[in-house]
Structure formats: C-alpha cells, structure tokens
C-alpha cells in the first residue's frame, strides 16, 4: 500500500471537514425555515462507498451519531447497483435507521471514473411533515402514523431529473408545502456543493489514494478512542434517569444504564430500562447509540477525528420494545430531542464514578420544543414553526455550566427575537436568564431562560414537548440541582399564569398538542437549569459577587444556596 504521511492525512481530514462546513453554510443561507437559517438544526456528512462516515463538522451530535445507520440502511435496502449519477434519495423512517420522523436525510452518490466512490448527505429537521399536530411534534401521539409522513428511502431526483410523483406525495402531506419545497432544495443544493468539492479532491489525489487515506483516518480514529478508553478504570458503572411523563400518561419512564469498561472498549447496556412508553418519549435504537457515542466523546479528547472509526469501540446493547429502542409502531418524536440528552447525561453520570475530574453535572436536557401554527394576519398565509429554547448545562470540575444553550444533543442556536417577531404574529415581552435556576456548587450550573410571548393574531394553535418540569438536573459531588422548567399560559384578562393542565385540562403540564390561543393570550416558557459541581460552600466569594452583579443569583439565593451574606 502507498505510504501516506501524517501531514497529507491531516490535510485530507481537514479538507473533508471543510466540505461539510461549506455544505452547512449553503444550507443556512438558502433554507426557508428559521429552524435552519437561525437554529442550524441540520448536519452535513460524507461517507465512503461502504457506508463509513469519513467527514463531518460541528453540527448536531444526535444526527452525526445516527447518520451511519441511516446511510447504511439506505445502501443495503436499495443496493449500490441502484444508484446512478445525479440521483438523490430522501429518507425519514425511524424504523429504518433515522432519529425521528422530522429528521429527513437526503443522500447523493458521488461517482468517480465510472463508479461510486462515496456519498454525501444532509440530515435536517424538516419543520412540518403532516401528522396530527401542526409542526409535526405530536406530544400525545401513541403511534408513528400520527407523527407525519413516513418515507422509506426513495429517489426524489433520478439521473438529475425530478421524480415528480414522489414530490407530489410528499408536498401533499405537508401543511406548508412551499416551505418544505424550499428547505428540501436547500438540503439538495448543499449536496451539489459537496459533490463538486469531493470530485476536486478525487481529481487531485485519485480515487484509490483517497480511499486509502480515509481508511487510514478511520483506523487512526478508532485507535485513538481505544487509547482514551484504556485510561478509564475497568469496571461496571451504573446510572439512571427518568422522563417525567410521556404526554399520554402521567407516569415517569426510567432509563437505566450498566456501563462496562473493558480494557479498550465500552459496552453501554441499556437492557434494564423501562418498556416503551405509550407516548412519544421513546428513543429509536440509533438515538440511543448516538447518545452513547456522544457521552463518550464529551469525556475523551476533542482532537479525535470524528468519523465512524471512533464509534467502533463503543458497543450498545438494548432491548427492542423499550424506551431506548422503540418497537414498531410506537411513537418516537420526543425521543430524539428529550430522551437523547437524558441518555447522554446518564452515560456521563456513570463515567463520573470512574473519571470524576472530566465529568459534568446533568444539564437541563430539554429542547423546550414549542410549536405553533395559524393564518398570518398580515399575509393571509398559513404558517407553522418549530421553536426551541436553550436550557442550562451542567457545571464541570473546572467551569460553570453554559446558560440557556440548546441541549448537547442538538448544538443548535436560538432564534433571535427580531426574526421571530418579523415572521410570526407574536410579541416578545420578556427574554432573559432566570436568576437562581443554575444548581449551586463550587462551579454553578448554567441558567435556564424565561420567555414570554403575546399572541397578536386572532388565533394561534400551540403544542409543546418539554421535560424537567417536575424533575431536576442533578448536581455532582455535593453540587445542587438545577431549577425546573415549565410552560404556562395567561389568558387575556387573567392576572396570573397557569399550567396548560390547569387552563386547558391537558394530561401533561409539559407535553400537549393543538391548544387554541386567542389574541392577547400570553405564553411563558421557562427552560430548566443545569446542576452544580462540588460543594456550594467552596464557591469563591468573587464568583458569588459576580453572579450577584449580573443578576444570575438573587441576594436571597446567595444567602440560602451559598450561605453568603451580600
């Protein structure tokens, strides 16, 4: 085999990363929906012809960890021989390797010298795909068929030509087809850019050399991850967490992990987790796998090349029909946004027993998913939107938790108030960090946020899917728990906010669909805070004073949580 020096290998690795970044920039600049052009809820990846991921960038960990399953499934189901130059396949089936129904993957083969060299793909959360709730986030769904239009791997473009019949089926089932049209084309456009750049690399290096180099990168990444795992003491580590309810019943659903570190591999055994829930907090197998990978990646070197190689030493064991591996036809839309960060937090909690100096306390672990739809009074057009709010992250042994950031599974951005108000009939009355919501500790948990929105249209239909409104993000090693989140409503003329259960009789305070609000009604979203790390008594007076000046803790909080008299 031709020798490949490490400099060339590094150049190739960075070139693959940069192709993915350029795909992301194109996606951001050309997509229609705020969840893409502001939230960046998508991931761009490159695969070899065997289905190994060889390139990715700083996108959504849940998509990145699961992408190889979706791509592998597509290749295996369709067969390599079925792909032709100019084809684009779309796929969103959670029972064929996808995270949840809104996540659509578009996949394009890259041909070089007459044969498939690899694939480029973009996975993105399409904001409206039909189903029982506008915004396709049905928090009280009991089966996958209520969650929207489910697509097996099918060609939407064949040899460069639209497959119009498939487009008709897709867009006839989406409530906002014009937006879906634009977003899907932004995704497909990013594939064309990646194809052009990858062909440039193939022209420069040759197909055989680039294959050998990417294989070397996969093996290098695997070796590095194995070395990192060797530094973790062998043993069995246990941890658990629960989803506070499933949107259909008010009972908690438990996630339980036995994590086995065995020399240079990790086995994440989830088989003691609860049976799958009736409501949509179930994770698909690939979500659980992605969360397991992500937990390990958080606690190992940032410099390990992110590709399929670094996942090889991490084995995932689940039981079909459980909350961590939903069995058909169970619902799973919340498993990707809410259950994933809980699963990942459990991995970190288990490993905190082995490598406490690297671990973090629990995060708010909720995307605070808020969906709304209606007819815009200014345009007369029907709209839907998928909105997320950040929560507090857990503190570590060396810094405070990040405040009001998308959970670690999403790595998305918030939508600016100006964009939200410009596109949709809401007035934002408040958007701030919540004092005292970060768990106290030597290092403080990140703060949750508070957002109050007033309805400006005659009516808006709202849905929500949140968690950690009854439970808390835990602290570590004496650190305190983070503040709970919540979503509340104040009807026009009322003086106080109430839960949606109190106001509308929903089963769950935090998971409901299709509640009709009228002009002047207000919604208040509190995102949860992160847990603290270490005893609060060990927090430095300088840090407490800074928190007081910033309003991140209140004078009462300083006294009660830290024993500090301001």
């Amino acid at each position, binding site marked *: 085999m031709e020798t490949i020096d490490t400099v060339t290998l590094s150049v190739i690795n960075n070139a693959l990363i940069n192709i993915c970044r350029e795909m992301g920039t194109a996606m951001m600049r050309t997509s229609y929906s705020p969840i893409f052009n502001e939230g960046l809820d998508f991931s761009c990846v490159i695969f070899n012809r065997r289905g190994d991921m060889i390139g990715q960038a700083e996108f959504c960990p849940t998509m990145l960890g699961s992408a190889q399953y979706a791509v592998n499934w597509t290749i*295996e189901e369709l067969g390599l021989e079925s792909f032709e130059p100019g084809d684009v396949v779309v796929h969103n089936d959670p029972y*064929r*390797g996808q995270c949840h129904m809104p996540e659509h993957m578009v996949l394009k083969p890259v041909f070089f010298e007459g044969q498939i060299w690899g694939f480029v793909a973009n996975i993105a959360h399409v904001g409206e795909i039909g189903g029982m709730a506008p915004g396709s986030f049905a928090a009280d769904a009991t089966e996958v068929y209520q969650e929207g239009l489910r697509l097996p791997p099918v060609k939407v473009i064949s040899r460069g030509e639209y497959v119009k019949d498939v487009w008709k089926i897709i867009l006839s089932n989406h409530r906002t087809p014009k937006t879906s049209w634009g977003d899907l084309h932004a995704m497909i456009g990013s594939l064309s850019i990646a194809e052009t750049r990858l062909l440039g690399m193939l022209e420069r290096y040759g197909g055989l050399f680039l294959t050998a180099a990417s294989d070397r990168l996969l093996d290098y990444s695997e070796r590095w991850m194995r070395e990192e795992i060797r530094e973790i003491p062998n043993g069995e580590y246990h941890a658990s967490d629960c989803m506070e309810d499933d949107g259909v019943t008010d009972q908690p659903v438990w996630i339980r992990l036995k994590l086995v570190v065995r020399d240079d591999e990790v086995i994440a055994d989830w088989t003691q987790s609860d049976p799958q829930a009736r409501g949509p907090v179930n994770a698909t197998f690939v979500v659980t796998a992605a969360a397991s990978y992500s937990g390990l990646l958080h606690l190992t070197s940032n410099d390990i090349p992110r590709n399929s190689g670094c996942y090889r030493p991490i084995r995932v064991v689940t039981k079909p029909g459980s909350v961590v591996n939903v069995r058909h036809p169970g619902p799973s839309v919340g498993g990707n946004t809410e259950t994933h960060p809980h699963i990942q937090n459990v991995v970190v909690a288990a490993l905190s027993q082995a490598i406490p100096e690297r671990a973090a306390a629990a995060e708010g672990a909720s995307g605070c998913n808020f969906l709304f739809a209606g007819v815009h009074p200014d345009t007369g057009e029907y709209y839907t939107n998928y909105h997320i709010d950040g929560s507090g992250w857990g503190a570590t042994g060396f810094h405070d938790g990040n405040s009001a950031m998308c959970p670690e599974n999403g790595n998305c951005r918030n939508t600016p108030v100006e964009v939200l108000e410009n596109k949709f009939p809401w007035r934002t009355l408040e958007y701030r960090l919540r004092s005292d919501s970060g768990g106290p500790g030597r290092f403080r948990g990140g703060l949750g946020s508070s957002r109050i929105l007033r309805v400006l249209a005659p009516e808006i239909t709202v849905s929500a899917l949140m968690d950690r409104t009854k439970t808390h993000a835990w602290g570590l090693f004496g650190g305190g728990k983070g503040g709970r989140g919540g979503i509340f409503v104040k009807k026009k003329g009322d003086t106080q906010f109430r839960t949606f259960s109190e106001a509308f009789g929903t089963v769950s305070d935090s998971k409901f669909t299709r509640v009709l609000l009228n002009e002047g009604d207000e919604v208040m979203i509190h995102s949860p805070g992160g847990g603290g790390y270490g005893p609060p008594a060990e927090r430095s007076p300088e840090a407490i004073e800074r928190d007081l000046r910033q309003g991140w803790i209140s004078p009462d909080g300083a006294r009660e949580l830290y024993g500090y008299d301001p």
Partner: protein
Amino acid sequence: MIYCDLCGRIIPNFWVVEAERLVFCDPDCEKLYNDYWVPSQDREA
C-alpha cells in the same frame, strides 16, 4: 422487522447462528453476545 439478538437494532442481510436460532447484525455482535451478554446473564441468574 428482524432484530439483532444482541444490540436490538432492526437489521436492514443478517448473521444467523443455529433448537436455538440467534440472529445478529454481524459476527461482531455474535462475539459480544458470547463473551459479554451470556456471562452477564449467567452471573445475574
């Protein structure tokens, strides 16, 4: 839908080992089944 008897994944080609018939994603899953799952179940029993 055919599920792997070790990891639980739905298999899109599968590896079968045979009154007992076990189905795996690939030989790697069979290996982990034999050297992790079976001993761990024996210990718990």
